[in-house]
Each structure stands twice: as structure tokens, then as C-alpha cells.
């Protein structure tokens, strides 16, 4: 073919000339790809998101108001799990979808919601059909804006058609989106371009998405854009039946789309046209986000923040110098104590090896428990005394050696991070309805009214029991004398301490939701009048664990507490055992008979040094056992969605004593519910 070949740089230059955009506006200011990516990445990772004025005259509907509903609907329609974050224009990194914080004014609820739905459908569609999975394709469209836009428009056509075919109700919606002015604002990357005078060659591409934009110049028959769309429309959409599985094999699908996009690109080049701009609602494809493995980088970044840097440097140094590398780090020699015998006494018989039927007797387990309780009396009678610096020293279980290490770790209580007052109020204001609901449910915990059956004494005869006793007497048996019933209204107080994971890994979404969760929970507890406390953990130093007091038992709600609750800050690692032991003592010194320790954590107990893997898990499990013996009920809500999480959570907290949330989004509603379930 005699078609001129064009390079990505040519089209880039043409794009800039065509729309009068600078390279920076195209997101490509830097000389090399590497630099550009680094800059983008840095901007994304380290710059706080720019805030738009929300709620004022200048915006329409804000995403926050509909995000729950929207995510729920899209999860139901697509069967995929993803989270929603902010970005304008909409986009995806193959894990999350990004939507604008708000749509332009004026707010018209129904229309704006329709628009959000359409924006999200495009992005979820990309996820669902694996459009952005092929790295070679992404690399090819990365710098070439003409190719990228053409590919994007064709892919958007495909996913919208797929939705419409599978869900008749959506077809109507998508047609209505087309008439919205807001939806059709045209952009190249993030920069708006005028939509008047749109070249006729582009028009069929928009017609295929939004039929009523106002430059309806009929493209000629045999027009390449029309032909491309026909080809795309001919691609089969699999899985459109019930079940809604994925479509055509993604690799083939993207290759076909790319082929068509390449043809269009040649065509536009011959006409000396730049990239077709994109209607706002179809968003933007950001190959750099995916190619740079943003998700991996964020994970890496968090690891790094957790303090693995020296270790990694060491490993890297060793890799560079494989022959005579640095010696491996020598673990600190444990200070071995006398409590080795402890293990056998508290863990009881090894139930894991018991045969499935019969042999395991509950009596054995009971005996072992009783033995453990006796040990507790002499060993754990008092909390450790605070040192001069206010820190308390706790023993730690050394799993490899099978002994406790005396005073191996210090826990010091510090005041939690503080900041502006607005954080707390914002959560309260945004969740009025939920708070009301939580309070309503908590109300039922406050006063318990019920009949206590089978009492030795009471206001009324318990007929069933009385008859049973009578018949026993008549039959010559020893009767059960507890034949009364009593109506009680009792106020059962429970002391509750919530321990929140503030380690480095909670950075971002998780901590945000933890904050929301504790605020909602606090609002419920306040009305209930149960004594309660919130503490946050995350240690920056292995031997000294700082426990941040967000709200102490004795502290009243006021500015200081609100400020702390609204400004959680992530930092450090998860030396969970130590924190549990300390929290256990805080609770054990409460006068209330019932005490609950709720742990919210997002991962395994892990700290620098030895405290990871088996060691971290075993020490934490021992800590849980110790705390339980203090008469404290320990329960965990884990945000660790990994497959293997059940195993270690079960080992630490025991079966049925933890709740694993698949999505952190559920935390604010589940935290109060778990508490309610525990004390009910």
C-alpha cells in the first residue's frame, strides 16, 4: 500500500498544532517517556487530589451522593468488584474506576445520575471486556493521540453496544445521555476543545455514541469511519445471556479494535487531521497508568513506608555483589524467660490431629481451659507497671524458641494525631441517615426487657417448668426447682474498646473508611452511653509501640476528641500482639462486667525484623489468648481480602471470632453491626 507511514511524534505535533495545545496539556511535557511517566506517577501518588468546590452553584450532582447506589448497580450488572475513585475525565487503571467528583452545574438529579451511570458504564465496560489488558496495544496507543482516540471511540462503541444488548433498560438510558449537553463536551486529554466545525470525517464516530450532537454532517457511503463502525458492530458479544460473563476473548477483541483504529489513523493523517476529540462522558484511556503498574507501585510505596527500606537496600547490595555480599542480618538474641511451660498448659490437647468422629471429647477441652485459667491467676494477676517514660513493657511470644521473651516490647500511649475540626462533622453530615439507623438499632441494646425463664425465684410461675417439675415429682424423680419466671428491664453496660489499624498500608481509601466507621460507631455509642474508647496503632519503631489515643474511656466528646477522630493518620507497622496486650489491660481495669475488644485490621501482624509470618501470627494468637483470660471478648474485623486471610485470622482469633470483609466499603456499616451482634 502506498499509504504514508506516520510516527507517533508526527501525530503528536499535529495534535498540538491542530488544537493549539501545549505538550504539557497533553500530559507529555517531559522529553522521554520515562520522565513523563515518572512525573505523572509522582503527581498521582504524592499530590493531594485537587479539590473542587462541591455543593455550591458551580457544580451539579456530586459523586459522593450517589456513589453507593452507583457502585452497587454496576457490581450487580457486571459481576465485577472494583472501587470508585476521583478523576476527571473518567478513566480506569484496570482495577478501579475513576469518575469526576461532580458534574457541571446546574444540578438536575435525574439527568446527572444518568450521566454518572453512563460514564461508569463505559469504564466498567472496559474492565469487563478486558479492553485495556493487552500491554502491547497500550504501548502502541500511548503516545499516538490519533490512534488512541480512534481506538477509544471504537472501543466505547463496542462496550456501550454490549451493555445495551444485554440490558434493554440501559439502551434507553444511553440514548438519553446523548441529549445532555454536559455529556458531550469535547476534550483532548483533559483540555476542552470547541465542538463547532468538527471535521466531517470524525462525525460517524460520534454518531455511534451520541447521535444528536449538532454537527451532523453526513459521511459519504464507503466512508472509512462508517466502515470501521460497521466492523466493530459485527464483532460478537458473548456472554450477553444470563450470567453476564465476559465477551469475546479480550486479546482478539483488542487486536481487532486496534486494527480498525490503525486504518482510521492513516485516513485522518491523509486528511491532515489531528486526533478526534472525545465526548466527556466516554472519558480517557490512560495507558501510562496501566503500563506503569500503578497498583504495584502503590503497593511498593506502602511497603517502603512500612520501613523495609534498609532490608531492601541490603538485598539489593547483595544482589549487586553476589560473591562476597554483606552478611545476612543477625537477629537479636532473645531474652529467654521461664514461661516455656506455659504453652502446653494453655493450648490444651492438640485438636488438629483428632479423628473426625468421636474421639475428641469436649470434656478434654474444658479441662484444658480450666487448667489455663488456673495459670492465669498467678501469672497475669496485674498489668505491668509503667516505666519512667510512661511506657509499659510486655512479654512477647517467641514462636521459634517456644518461650516468652520477658519485657520484649514497650507500649506507650500517646495522643492521636490532630487536625482541623471539619473532618468529624463532614462524616456526620454526610451520614445523617445511617447514624439515625445505627442509633435506632443501638437503642434496642440499651434496655433489655424480657422474661427470664427458669429462675429459682420470681414474680410468676413458669408454667412449662412447673409442669415438668410436677411430673418429675410424680414420676419419682428429683425435680428442678427453678420454676419461676421474672420480667427484667436491665441496663446491661458493656465496656468497648476499638483498636484501629493505622499502619502504613491503610493509607488512602482504607483509612478514610476507618475514619468514617469510627465516627459512625461513636455516634451510636454516644447515645447508648456505654463506656468506650478508640485507639489507633501503627508503630514506627519495633521495640517501642506507640498506641494513639483517639478517645480514651474517661474522655468526653469535645473539640479535642473530634479533631482526633476526624484526622486519622497512617504510619508504621503492625506489631499487633503488643497492642492487644495493652488494650486488654485497659479493658480489664474497667468496672463493667462485660468487656469487648474490637480490632479493625487490614493485614497480617507484621513488623520489622522477625515479627512476620508465623512469628507475628503466633505472638498475636498468644496475645489474644492472654486477653481472653482477662475476661475480655476479642473480635476482629479484617479488611484483608486475600485468599489466605481466613487461615491466619482463624489461627489468631479462633473460628467465628473474626469477620473478613471483602470490601472495605462495608466497614462503616458493619462495624456497629458486629458490635451489636456481640453484645446482643
Amino acid at each position: 500500500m502506498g499509504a504514508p507511514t506516520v510516527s507517533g511524534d508526527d501525530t503528536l505535533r499535529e495534535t498540538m498544532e491542530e488544537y493549539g495545545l501545549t505538550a504539557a496539556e497533553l500530559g507529555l511535557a517531559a522529553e522521554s517517556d520515562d520522565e513523563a511517566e515518572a512525573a505523572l506517577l509522582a503527581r498521582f501518588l504524592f499530590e493531594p487530589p485537587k479539590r473542587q468546590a462541591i455543593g455550591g452553584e458551580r457544580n451539579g450532582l456530586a459523586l459522593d451522593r450517589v456513589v453507593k447506589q452507583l457502585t452497587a448497580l454496576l457490581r450487580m450488572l457486571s459481576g465485577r468488584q472494583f472501587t470508585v475513585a476521583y478523576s476527571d475525565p473518567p478513566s480506569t487503571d484496570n482495577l478501579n474506576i475513576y469518575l469526576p467528583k461532580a458534574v457541571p452545574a446546574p444540578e438536575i438529579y435525574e439527568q446527572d445520575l444518568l450521566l454518572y451511570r453512563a460514564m461508569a458504564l463505559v469504564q466498567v465496560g472496559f474492565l469487563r471486556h478486558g479492553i485495556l489488558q493487552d500491554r502491547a496495544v497500550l504501548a502502541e496507543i500511548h503516545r499516538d493521540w490519533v490512534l488512541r482516540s480512534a481506538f477509544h471511540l471504537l472501543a466505547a462503541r463496542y462496550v456501550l453496544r454490549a451493555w445495551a444488548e444485554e440490558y434493554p433498560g440501559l439502551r434507553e438510558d444511553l440514548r438519553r445521555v446523548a441529549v445532555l449537553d454536559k455529556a458531550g463536551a469535547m476534550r483532548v486529554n483533559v483540555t476542552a476543545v470547541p465542538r463547532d466545525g468538527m471535521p466531517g470525517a470524525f462525525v460517524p464516530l460520534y454518531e455511534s455514541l451520541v447521535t444528536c450532537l449538532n454537527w451532523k454532517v453526513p459521511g459519504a457511503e464507503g466512508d472509512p469511519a462508517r466502515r470501521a463502525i460497521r466492523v466493530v458492530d459485527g464483532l460478537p458479544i458473548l456472554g450477553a445471556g444470563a450470567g453476564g460473563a465476559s465477551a469475546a476473548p479480550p486479546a482478539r477483541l483488542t487486536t481487532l479494535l486496534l486494527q480498525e483504529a490503525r486504518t482510521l489513523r492513516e485516513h485522518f493523517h491523509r486528511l491532515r487531521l489531528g486526533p478526534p476529540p472525545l465526548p466527556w462522558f466516554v472519558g480517557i484511556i490512560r495507558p501510562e497508568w496501566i503500563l506503569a503498574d500503578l497498583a504495584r507501585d502503590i503497593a511498593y510505596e506502602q511497603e517502603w513506608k512500612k520501613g523495609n527500606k534498609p532490608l531492601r537496600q541490603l538485598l539489593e547490595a547483595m544482589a549487586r555483589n553476589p560473591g562476597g555480599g554483606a552478611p545476612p542480618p543477625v537477629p537479636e538474641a532473645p531474652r529467654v524467660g521461664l514461661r516455656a511451660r506455659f504453652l502446653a498448659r494453655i493450648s490444651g490437647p492438640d485438636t488438629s490431629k483428632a479423628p473426625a468422629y468421636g474421639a475428641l471429647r469436649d470434656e478434654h477441652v474444658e479441662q484444658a481451659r480450666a487448667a489455663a485459667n488456673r495459670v492465669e491467676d498467678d501469672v497475669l494477676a496485674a498489668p505491668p507497671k509503667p516505666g519512667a517514660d510512661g511506657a509499659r513493657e510486655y512479654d512477647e511470644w517467641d514462636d521459634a524458641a517456644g518461650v516468652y521473651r520477658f519485657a520484649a516490647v514497650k507500649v506507650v500511649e500517646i495522643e492521636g494525631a490532630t487536625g482541623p475540626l471539619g473532618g468529624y462533622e463532614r462524616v456526620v453530615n454526610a451520614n445523617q441517615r445511617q447514624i439515625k439507623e445505627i442509633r435506632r438499632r443501638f437503642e434496642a441494646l440499651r434496655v433489655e426487657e424480657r422474661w427470664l425463664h427458669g429462675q429459682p425465684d420470681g414474680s410468676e410461675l413458669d408454667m412449662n417448668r412447673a409442669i415438668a417439675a410436677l411430673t418429675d415429682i410424680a414420676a419419682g424423680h428429683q425435680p428442678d426447682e427453678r420454676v419461676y419466671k421474672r420480667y427484667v428491664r436491665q441496663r446491661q453496660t458493656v465496656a468497648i474498646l476499638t483498636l484501629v489499624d493505622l499502619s502504613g498500608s491503610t493509607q488512602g481509601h482504607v483509612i478514610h473508611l476507618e475514619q468514617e466507621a469510627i465516627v459512625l460507631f461513636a455516634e451510636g455509642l454516644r447515645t447508648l452511653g456505654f463506656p468506650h474508647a478508640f485507639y489507633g496503632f501503627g508503630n514506627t519503631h519495633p521495640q517501642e509501640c506507640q498506641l494513639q489515643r483517639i478517645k480514651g474511656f474517661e474522655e468526653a466528646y469535645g473539640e479535642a476528641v473530634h479533631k482526633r477522630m476526624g484526622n486519622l493518620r497512617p504510619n508504621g507497622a503492625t506489631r499487633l500482639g503488643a497492642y492487644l496486650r495493652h488494650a486488654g489491660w485497659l479493658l480489664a481495669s474497667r468496672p463493667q462486667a462485660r468487656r469487648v475488644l474490637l480490632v479493625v485490621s487490614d493485614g497480617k501482624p507484621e513488623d520489622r525484623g522477625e515479627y512476620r509470618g508465623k512469628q507475628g501470627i503466633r505472638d498475636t494468637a498468644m496475645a489474644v489468648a492472654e486477653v481472653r483470660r482477662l475476661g475480655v471478648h476479642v473480635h476482629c474485623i479484617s479488611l484483608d481480602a486475600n485468599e489466605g486471610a481466613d487461615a491466619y485470622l482463624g489461627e489468631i482469633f479462633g473460628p467465628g471470632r473474626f469477620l473478613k470483609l471483602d470490601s472495605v466499603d462495608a466497614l462503616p456499616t458493619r462495624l456497629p453491626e458486629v458490635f451489636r451482634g456481640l453484645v446482643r
Partner: protein
Amino acid sequence: MIYYRPHGNEVEVFRVAAARKLPILLKGPTGCGKTRFVRYMAEQLGRSLVTVACQEDLAAADLTGRFLLEGGQTVWRDGPLTRAVRAGAICYLDEVVEARADVMTVLHPLTDDRRVLPLDRTGEELVAPDDFLVVISYNPGYQSVSKELKESTRQRFVSLSFDYPTAGIEAEIVQAESGCGADVAQTLVKLGQGSRNLRAHGLGEGASTRLLVYAATLVVAGLPLKEAAEATLVGSLTDDVEMTKALRELVRSVLG
């Protein structure tokens, strides 16, 4: 003939376990056909079935039996479990975690190789005949965190995990149970499956097969599909306002 549509190897496993006198634990979400399955198996094996729905107040004596006064005489009355043992029936304890702890104690000697039921009150010790079988059910997704099956109980049972059937089979069931058309059944199943994508993400559980059968029944009785779906799938799954809106949108998206 009881209608049951198998969707895995549950029938074979049940048969083998029953032949070997091994007690059976059925795990699965609500309305996925557990009760129906047990009724079906009882019929297939030609054994009678005693069903006990467990709730908080159910105590051991409610299962084993108690003395009653009749005309000045004390008369022993067998409870359902004792009756099942004597008759060599299948005893099905539905939602067993709901019952009081002492119920489990009664079940333990019956569900290991001893297979006996001691009745302290009458001084008897019943030895279960070969045809006697304990089947319990349990919904692990159930809300209350304190209600978990004890390990020593769990390990006495052969467990069969149930889940909602695949789309094709479920549509078949909905059609057979309600007498609705294939289109209606398929549409309802699509809705049901959509709602199940939200399990643990806003909904405790998605729509059960039972709920889909209800919806189909309403349609057969003349209600428009949309209203039937609204009354069952939207109304019965959640009270949360946002979730309700999302479910309503799902119905609208599927039905058009």
C-alpha cells in the same frame, strides 16, 4: 413425587453417607433448596422424615421428650428426635445453630459411632437402628457472629455445600415450580444473579431461588413482571435506601 432438580453430586454423596450411617451437614444460603433436597432424599430412600425447625428456645427436652400429666398419671411423650430414632427415620434439624447449646450435647452420642440416645428421665438408652440418620442444616452467611458451629460438632458430619444453581438449572427450577414461561424464568434468574453479585457488598445475601419462584408465581397469577420483581426482589432484600434504588435500577435495566 417430590420435585428436586440436582445441581451437583449431592444426591450420590447423600446416598453413600446414608448407607454408611454418617450424619450429614447441609451448608448453604437461604432458599437454595436444602429442605427440598432432604425431603426428596427421604422419599428416594424410602425413609420417613422428621423435621425440626430450630430456634432460640428449643432445648434438648423439646427434642428428646418429657413427662406429661394425663388424668393424674404421668405419661412419657417422645420428642421428635426420639420418635425418629425409634422409627429409623431421617431427622432433619433446620438451622441448627439457632438452638440452645444442650441440643448439641444430645446429638453428639447419636452422631458418632455409638449411635445412642440416652434418655435420663426414663432411664432408657436407645440404640439407633441402621435407617436412622441425622441431617442438620446451617447457613454460614448468617449475620450473628456468636452463632457458629462448634468444631467438635462440625467434624462429626459429612458436609454438603449448597449454593444457588447455575443460570440454566435455576431457570428450569423456577419454571417447574411456578409454571411460568421460559422467558420470565430467564429474566428473573438474571435479576437474581445480579443481586447475588452484591453479596457481602451491601446486601447480606442476594435473591434466593425461593424468592425467584415467588416472583414467578406472582407473574403466573397475572401480575406484570415489573411489579412482581419490585414486590419480591427489591422489597424483600434490603431496607437500605441506596441499595433499594440500586436494585430498582437493576430491575429497570434488565426489563427495559
